[in-house]
């Protein structure tokens, strides 16, 4: 078996040194009645050719996003990742290295994390960022717990613009931890009045911008309303590229900023692995979950990097830890950092502008179709259209015409009564021809009348 270097001679010699008659003697502590006598009901090992064949067959049963005009966002976005990124992250020393607990032989990882933390802080307009979380949704849940620790209150208010699955994650954590979660109804027009929902028991208000429907929200007045009541503002984003064009949450007085970094450097990958971004103000740093890389010197006085403030973490504080997190999303954070370095500020602004231009163009084309209207006043690369008949059915009809047209809101919120809304994203990889094809196909679907 190609991954197992020991052969029969090796095993015999090793058993002799150990003084065991056979390898089963080493498993003697397994209760006899529970030892597996028969082989598992799994096929025997396959050679590489056959493994490739089987997995390629499974892959072939999927419609890859790049093979059709593609306009789906809703929390994960299709962008162009330069070829260099995937090659660099596959270097052995990045791909197959462990967590940098022995910093003397992990300066590569640690310096990258330090650079990543700086990039995330700059992007979000905050003072300090951690070395990444699993993804945006779990980062959001952890931010709420952090706000509870800081304010010593246990009630979080979730804006109706928050991604429904992010709200689900927060609600699950809240129920399990016996905290209170107030979930405002889904808010496609960014019309909700959050300030009236904040009282003296509120620990935090959680607002997404660009929101789930694509609306851009001014967080400054919400921050002011929260602070007036001693509560914190947690700002959320799911499209990291937006920060190349849109005002940062830090500038709008957010206390904690969390988001999904997948857009930069990471493939769609059917939902994971992704990379959670987490940033806050320096005064809150000891309550921030996750790993942190810090600068120091070594015994020769040379600038070096090391994981620090670890006593907040589970392996030391145990039941008093800030969270139970053990891993960050290291390789995905590396990909994010490499991509952002290749973009640079100028490149990021430019690609963000291309995203916005593509979305503005598509929005114009779609709103020109009779019966279709765009819900948003301001947006970045994602917006919501209202359709004259049920969105879910329309999306399926578009698939039949070779177009992936966006997310029917009813898929994530089946009982919100928003069955006529589609959330549509257009990024720098969509072409003019793609957008024309979408508009034409949608027009045809609506003219054809179609079934529900």
């Amino acid at each position: 078996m190609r991954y197992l270097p020991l052969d029969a001679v090796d095993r015999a010699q090793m058993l002799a040194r150990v003084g065991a008659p056979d390898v089963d003697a080493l498993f003697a502590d397994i209760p006899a009645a529970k030892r597996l006598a028969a082989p598992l009901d799994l096929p025997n090992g396959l050679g590489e050719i056959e493994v490739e064949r089987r997995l390629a067959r499974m892959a072939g049963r999927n419609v890859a996003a790049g093979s059709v005009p593609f306009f789906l966002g809703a929390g994960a976005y299709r962008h162009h990742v330069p070829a260099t990124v995937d090659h660099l992250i596959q270097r052995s020393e990045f791909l197959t290295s462990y967590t940098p607990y022995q910093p003397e032989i992990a300066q590569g990882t640690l310096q990258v994390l330090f650079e990543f933390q700086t990039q995330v802080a700059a992007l979000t307009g905050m003072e300090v960022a951690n070395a990444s979380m699993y993804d945006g949704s779990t980062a959001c849940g952890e931010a709420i717990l952090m706000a509870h620790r800081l304010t010593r209150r246990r009630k979080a208010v979730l804006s109706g613009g928050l991604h429904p699955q992010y709200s689900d994650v927060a609600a699950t954590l809240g129920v399990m931890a016996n905290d209170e979660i107030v979930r405002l109804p889904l808010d496609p027009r960014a019309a909700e009045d959050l300030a009236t929902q904040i009282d003296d028991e509120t620990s935090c208000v959680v607002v997404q911008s660009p929101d789930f429907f694509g609306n851009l929200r001014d967080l400054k007045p919400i921050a002011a309303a929260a602070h007036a009541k001693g509560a914190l503002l947690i700002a959320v984003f799911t499209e990291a590229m937006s920060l190349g064009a849109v005002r940062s949450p830090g500038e709008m007085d957010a206390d904690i900023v969390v988001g999904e970094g997948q857009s930069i450097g990471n493939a769609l990958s059917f939902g994971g692995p992704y990379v959670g971004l987490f940033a806050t103000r320096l005064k809150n740093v000891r309550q921030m979950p996750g790993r942190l890389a810090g600068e120091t010197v070594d015994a020769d006085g040379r600038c070096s990097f090391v994981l620090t403030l670890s006593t907040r973490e589970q392996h030391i504080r145990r039941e008093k830890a800030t969270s139970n997190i053990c891993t960050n999303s290291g390789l995905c954070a590396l990909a994010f950092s490499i991509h952002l370095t290749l973009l640079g500020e100028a490149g990021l602004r430019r690609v963000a502008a291309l995203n916005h231009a593509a979305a503005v163009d598509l929005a114009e084309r779609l709103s020109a179709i009779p019966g279709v209207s765009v819900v948003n006043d301001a947006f970045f690369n994602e917006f919501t259209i209202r359709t004259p008949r049920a969105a879910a059915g329309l999306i399926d009809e578009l698939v039949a015409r070779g177009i992936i047209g966006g997310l029917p809101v009813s898929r994530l919120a089946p009982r919100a009564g928003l069955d006529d809304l589609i959330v549509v994203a257009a990024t720098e990889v969509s072409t003019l021809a793609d957008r024309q094809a979408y508009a034409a196909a949608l027009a045809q679907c609506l003219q054809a009348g179609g079934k529900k």
Partner: protein
Amino acid sequence: MTDTRYTKDHEYARVEGDVATVGISDHAQEALGDVVFVELPALGAKLAKGDSAAVVESVKAASDVFAPVSGEVVEVNKDVDAQPALINEDAMGRGWIFKIKVANAAELTSLLSEVDYAAFLKTLA
């Protein structure tokens, strides 16, 4: 009259009048290693004997400092906040952590005297 008493968790309480100055013993700072941060109690906090009052963090551990007696926190040491190393340098003196107004003097008698604490340390070695 100044009287220093100790707990088996390695806190000390130096009593002057009805106020006790609380910190961790020299043995404790040695075991912790370099102190990097101290989480001080809130001024005015009302603590029961045994409550977690403060946290002393070193690079490798974080240790709770428990209130040796019940009472109200009347002062906290801003110096260890700025310079946690004081706890390593002078745990019994400048590295004090907080001062507590003793609510119940009877609780002091159940703490260890200096001699008894020294004997206790020998049993741990």
